[in-house]
């Protein structure tokens, strides 16, 4: 299994926000959900994607010339990549002297990933950390994800799985058996909203929740708090009740304030961002929603993430 390849778009060392201690987070590419607020738009499509950073481009046209598919085009707005024709071969990225073209997504075997992340083992040991599989949805590439988890376990490294709960038959069960900690992303407990916002029925998350509870695997629940979507008392109360009833053993429930840092990434990928221009939440809002969550039964609710600073734009 260790030679099974995965498409990974980032391996983040010294990661402090994806589980206990110091960690390395392995971001798998491809996700079954289509949340409009997604912070990592480059994580959604399963195939590698080339993006262009205009600020670095020297406009020498070499990338257009080297593309075997003729997918790289130079126009009035700079370089664009015809996604339909691009095969992700990476010739343009390898050429670009200025690193203005970047490939989101590299094929790596589970063994390669393991060998890379195991190098920080001393830091995991000393800090009580380890490796987190995140994405995208790591379980959308089940063979590689499970293979990596197995290798990490063999090396004695703490493994956290960050998942939206949606996976193929039997995959989640197997993954839970290999994980020391699961980070479950729970967006909303309202079936209609869940389907409308993520494109996936809540039932599937519900099923995952039951499986996690039965397995009694250590669990942290994470809920994005997004203006216009989940950032209402109603929504948060619903999620909190879901956690209290279906996931009673959750050790933590993190409410993650919406972040707009991804705006530039949407532009690079040539996709519209549904929340373009929407301001950050106020810290007071997060505080209140956190109280609502606790009052509704999610006793370990806490919040983090960027919030609005008064007069931010003026400085």
């Amino acid at each position, binding site marked *: 299994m260790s030679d099974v390849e995965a498409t990974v778009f980032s391996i*983040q060392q010294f990661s*402090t926000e994806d589980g206990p201690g110091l960690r390395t987070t392995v971001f798998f590419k491809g996700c079954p959900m289509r949340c409009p607020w997604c912070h990592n738009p480059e994580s959604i499509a399963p195939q590698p994607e080339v993006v262009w950073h205009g600020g670095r481009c020297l406009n020498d046209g070499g990338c257009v010339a080297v593309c075997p598919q003729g997918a790289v085009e130079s126009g009035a707005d700079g370089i664009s990549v015809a996604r339909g024709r691009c095969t992700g071969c990476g010739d343009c990225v390898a050429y670009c002297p*200025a690193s203005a073209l970047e490939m989101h997504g590299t094929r790596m075997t589970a063994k390669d990933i393991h060998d890379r992340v195991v190098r920080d083992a001393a*830091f995991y040991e*000393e800090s009580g950390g380890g490796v987190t599989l995140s994405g995208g949805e790591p379980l959308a590439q089940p063979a590689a994800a499970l293979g990596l988890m197995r290798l990490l376990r063999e090396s004695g490294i703490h493994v956290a799985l960050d998942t939206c709960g949606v996976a193929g038959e039997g995959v989640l069960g197997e993954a839970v058996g290999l994980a020391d900690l699961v980070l479950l992303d729970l967006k909303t407990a309202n079936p209609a909203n869940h389907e409308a916002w993520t494109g996936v029925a809540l039932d599937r998350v519900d099923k995952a929740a039951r499986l996690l509870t039965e397995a009694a695997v250590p669990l942290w629940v994470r809920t994005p708090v997004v203006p216009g979507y989940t950032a209402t008392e109603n929504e948060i109360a619903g999620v909190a009740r879901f956690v209290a009833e279906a996931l009673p053993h959750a050790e933590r429930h993190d409410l993650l304030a919406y972040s707009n840092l991804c705006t530039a990434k949407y532009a690079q990928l040539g996709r519209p961002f549904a929340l373009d221009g929407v301001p*950050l939440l106020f810290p007071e809002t997060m505080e209140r929603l956190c109280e609502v969550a606790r009052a509704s039964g999610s006793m370990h609710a806490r919040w983090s993430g960027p919030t609005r600073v008064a007069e931010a734009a003026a400085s």
Partner: protein
Amino acid sequence: MSVQVSPSSAEGLWRASAGLSERTRRLREEYFSFNTRAFRNEVMPFSTGKPWDCVFRYASWTIVPEMMLFLRAYEDSLAAAAKTVPLPESFWREPLIVRVALFFSEILRKHLPVDILEGELIVGAQFNVALSLCLNRHEARRRKKSAERFRAAVCAASDVGLGNCGAVPGHLIPDYPKVLRLGYRGIVEEAGEALAEESDPEKRDALRAFVIACKAGRALAARYAQVASQQAKACGGARAEELREVARLCGRVPWEPAATFHEALQSLWLAHMLVLTCESYPGAGVSFGRIDQYLYPYYEADLAAGRVTPDEARELLRCFWIKPNYAYDYQGRMGRNQGINSSFGQLITLSGCGPDGEDLTNDLTYLMLSVMEEMNLLEPKPNVRLHANTPDRLMREVCRLLARSQGAPFLLNFDETSMRALRSEGIPEADLWDYAPVGCLENTRQGDDRSGTVDVNFNLAKPVELALFQGKDLATGRQLGPRTADPEHMERWVDFEAAFRKQLSFCLRRLVELNNQADTVRAVYEPTPYLSALVGGCIENRRDITAGGARFNFITVEGVALATAADSLLAVRHLVFSEKRVSMAGLRSALEKNFEGEELLRQTLLNKAPKYGNDDETADAMARDITRWWSEEAASLTAPTTGRRYRAGYLSWNYGIAYAPLTAATPDGRPRGAYLSNGVAAVTGMDRHGPTAAARSVASIGPEAIPNGMSHTISLSPSLVCDEEHLEKLAGFLRGYARHGSTALQINMIGADTLRKAQQSPDQYPNLLVRVTGYNAYFTNLGREIQEEIIARESQRS
């Protein structure tokens, strides 16, 4: 580097504590009022009055390239301003080392002003002098010839960016515990016994000089006792009582052994202050060593006997704390922008392990950290020694202090790595645990070691330039190095490597030969008998420390620009020889043009070659190879006059700036003038995998090659330390760093100002990571509005 954005509670800037006593608050305020206070410890030159006299030592300052132009002006103006000290005719019949001791004695007995500042509990105020070299006409003429030859040669070497050298004072730890234990009296007795059995005239002279110098210290203390008594009579109340106590103390120490904590601090300060005086040097690198260890018995005994309360001890420490800062007085009035601009590194060492790896942290360790925080001064600068058995409480305290600071209030020293490094230069196994750093992070033994830790500074990027251009300096066209093979005719990497190694060896030997001149001039003409009396080995060897009298004698060659050199060689190997993506002719032509019109090539060099600092074994091996090449050769060299052995270090101070314009464009994509890399850190912006990967890269260099230790600086986001959970993560990082990292680590917190700089110069900060839960982005890739928002958020925090 990463900036994590999160809404933690805002921590205040690290500023002086509101909890300071009235006394220490006033002293502190007075200290900072450079332009209005009456008392100033500014340099006082003293001369024998002979027309050939000299009161300035070139080789003390030739490692400061910015000063080179002015060396003669300093020499002349100090000589012109010097006060003539009347001397008996018999003075001139004495040998040089005795004359120096007698002159020192005259100064301390009659000329050095004695000031006691209001409220002080530890006294000793005026110590900044330029003392006569006490040479006779004949000696002066010969010395001038040698010193002048050295000055011209070192300036020439520095002017083309090779590096610099000098016989630098300070940068050692005198045996202060011996002064506390035995007093000057004990040292004088020891020297006296040696004198009784010594028949060699030269050795007898040295011992006589040591005795004269220590007795002079006693005389100065007596003058302080006298002034304290007088002041006590003139004032009343509680202060009179304090001054009577000061008078009593100065009547005893440092001549007698210290009996109490207060006596120990008073003895320590006077003994230390006179080291600065005797070397005519404001104190850079004269370090205190493991002060929490050797002061603890006095503190403990006083507590047990009820002689002092913890609060009283704290107040005494505060009074002690401000004293080393007066070394900056000569910089204080240079204007708001040019004022005090770097610390002198009168280091104190806290915590650390014992002989069996056990932890030696004690109550004084914590008390001193607390005093450091509330006083908030540049000196004394603590180094905290961490190791496998560092207690969680100290680790938490260290992380908490880092979290509250903007720049790190202290450096962290890692015992296991430091001891491995020192083992390689032959420090006895049983003594390794008791090392301490001097200056910034340069590891030495305590009390008997002069390792000349900043004597030679070697620009490792210069041999890259010389290898590319057959030994020619690109700016002047002068043939500096050997005429190595023409790179354009090389077919294999090993040929280029051989050319680089030839130039590397040439540059190293040139600097070492130059430094041997400085070492000789100091050994022959500039003895410092007072310091010698305080350094182990000098009495036993009956030899002055400048002549190699200390038990351990090294001269450290500090490598500058390691990462710039490594990345440059990596680019040549990878892009020119392996991939053949870049031609040697094209590369050389671009470097000659300083990349003018060659941005495509420059970007290729920046982006398409492996870079040191990312835990990439192939790339890091280049830094290790370069290190081995020069450090092994350095270790084979010895200074002929003093027998001091050369050893390697990676403290690059600020030479990455000074030699930036004097080093041609380099194949790593750096144009002439852009800063060279610092210490063992990656080239700015080239370490893209965070602090753990950077730490492992640094560790891969191998501390065995670098006995002196290696400077490593990393930047962390304030949000990494925003709450207890994150402080624990930082502690975990430090414990991991102890296993894979440098001998010493400086941690800076990234503030709004750094983000602002990154916004303005994105090229310099391509790796600045902004991170929130489950998301990361490079700061420089974000749109301007979002950048503004992040900057505003960070501004609000501080």
